[in-house]
């Protein structure tokens, strides 16, 4: 319990200390800490690792099908993905808890075809500096957290896309 409280406080402190300068609708993440690893199965049971995308900009979105603002932003994420993938940017959605069947049904309904992995135990999600859904991070080609956003965004907004592309260097 004590460790859990300390963990929560550490995350809160990290978020407070993060530099809050805006870049469009995204917040800069302080000194760009290294992103925690993600090794999880996608909806087809294939293992996806964040490390495999080193050298590319990656948008990592933590979400759940039952979270209203997560549902709200998914159509714009799909629209953004259609452009981003043509420009070498990776999108990875991490569903917190749940089962592949539940998520597959949702993805099918919304026509999502970007990579989705399932964090069934939420262990991976807990290792990231966030506690609420949705939270999205933009990872630079060096594998460091450059930006984050709490709450839904319109991910195909030109300002956001420009911020993401600027990380490609």
């Amino acid at each position: 319990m004590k460790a859990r409280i300390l963990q929560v406080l550490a995350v809160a402190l990290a978020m407070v200390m993060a530099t809050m300068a805006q870049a469009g609708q995204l917040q800069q993440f302080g000194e760009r800490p290294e992103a925690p690893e993600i090794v999880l199965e996608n909806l087809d049971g294939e293992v996806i690792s964040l490390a495999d995308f080193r050298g590319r900009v990656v948008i990592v979105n933590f979400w759940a099908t039952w979270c209203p603002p997560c549902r709200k932003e998914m159509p714009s994420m799909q629209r953004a993905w259609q452009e981003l993938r043509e420009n070498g940017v990776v999108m990875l959605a991490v569903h917190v808890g749940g089962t592949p069947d539940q998520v597959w049904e949702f993805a099918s309904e919304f026509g999502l075809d970007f990579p989705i992995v399932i964090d069934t135990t939420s262990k991976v999600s807990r290792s990231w500096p966030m506690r609420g859904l949705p939270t999205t991070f933009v990872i630079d080609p060096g594998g460091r957290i450059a930006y984050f956003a709490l709450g839904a965004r319109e991910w195909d907004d030109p300002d956001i896309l420009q911020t993401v592309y600027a990380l490609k260097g």
Partner: protein
Amino acid sequence: MSRPVSIGHGLALLVALFGAPAAWAGQDGRVFLWEGEGLRLETAALPRDQVIAFLLARGFDSATAGAIAEEGCIFRSAIGSFALAPGEGPVSVSLGDWRVMADGQERGLRLREDWAAEMARRGADTAAAIALEWALFPSEQSFGPEDYNWGLLSFALPPGTPFDFTFSWWKGQSEYRRSFTDMECSP
């Protein structure tokens, strides 16, 4: 601009904020709204049948789902920054500081960590408990411009209990405190 508002039957506002989430389509309660000093807080009681439906869909058994709905006094909530200028803030909340006044007694909310311990004590389904944990609002959170989180607040009072609710937050170095009065758990 600062305005505490109690909005009767304000589903339209929630729909405008969240779209039309299927899980909460029948919600029809009073909406309590605060916008000012950097904070936006919007909250509304969830009918117990909707709480139970949500929990059953997450994998809880009916006994546990019913107990959470009975004990929880669950409100759906959106908390975030309000009208922050670039470089201003952040706005921070600590739900452990928020207070409930009911029947002449002051108490705290039942937090995410409290429910996690309760679910462990009950031996609840692990996947369901994970969903409940992430559905409850984080106990500590900071918001920059445009940021908000969605989540459930648990006032942990019996069904139908009237109460007043005092919430506080920090914007930069300044602390603020406001109250909603005449709130009520879903009967």
